């Protein structure tokens, strides 16, 4: 009797272990992640509409946000951009290129212990203002920097 119960118990924990491994390996994660991707915000939209879609607001005070990017980018296919801020309690950040057909390049959700900074490389179709936004203590702030592009990088 005892050994039978033990066998059933072992079988149960083995099954649970398999599910755990599947979750850990990311096999069950993608559908959850896909559902969270804000497709509306990445549409081809005028800049103000993309702000509204991505952040839920278009009116933002200027924030203490540093955008590091080249003044003149020779190749619009690859423009390195770093955004950082010393503002407190930052929960989200986003980066827009005003003149791009789809202005929102990316949006970041800061998790446990995250430092409010990111660096990536973006495509720019033409010379444009680059706008970084930071949600600090529940309010969105923005900063703007102009980047001149010699050869645009969205068509091909």
């Amino acid at each position: 009797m005892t050994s039978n119960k033990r066998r059933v118990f072992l079988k149960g924990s083995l099954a649970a272990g398999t599910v755990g491994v599947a979750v850990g390996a990311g096999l069950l994660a993608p559908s959850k992640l896909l559902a969270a991707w804000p497709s509306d915000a990445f549409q081809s939209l005028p800049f103000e509409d993309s702000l509204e879609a991505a952040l839920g607001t278009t009116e933002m005070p200027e924030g203490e946000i540093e955008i590091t990017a080249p003044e003149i980018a020779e190749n619009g296919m690859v423009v390195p951009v770093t955004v950082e801020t010393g503002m407190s309690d930052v929960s989200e950040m986003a980066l827009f290129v005003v003149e791009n057909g789809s202005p929102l390049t990316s949006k970041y959700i800061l998790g446990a212990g995250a430092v409010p900074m990111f660096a990536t490389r973006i495509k720019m179709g033409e010379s444009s203002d680059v706008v970084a936004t930071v949600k600090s203590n529940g309010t969105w702030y923005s900063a703007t920097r102009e980047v001149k592009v010699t050869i645009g990088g969205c068509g091909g």
Partner: protein
Amino acid sequence: MSTIRVRAAERDGVVTVRALMTHPMETGTAKDSAGNVIPPHHIETVLAESEGNTVMTAYWGVTISRNPFFQFQFAGNSGDSLKLSWTDNKGESDSVETTIG
């Protein structure tokens, strides 16, 4: 071989992660040599987890450059685990695990 190359190093309690991902990041507006439009193919979500906690989630559109670079920082320790994974608009995904140096 993994599509993700990642380095994570701790200094003064802050972990700096630098990652390079191999991905075409097609915008959906480019055409191939035959003049056919190449459909959009891009990473949508990048997830970074350390010691079971999500430290950073990135949502990307088509205007992140081909073979994306991504750097970020969080409070952590040398020896902790770091898992980085991406999922794209075709449902493809990849992930890599490393130990913070």
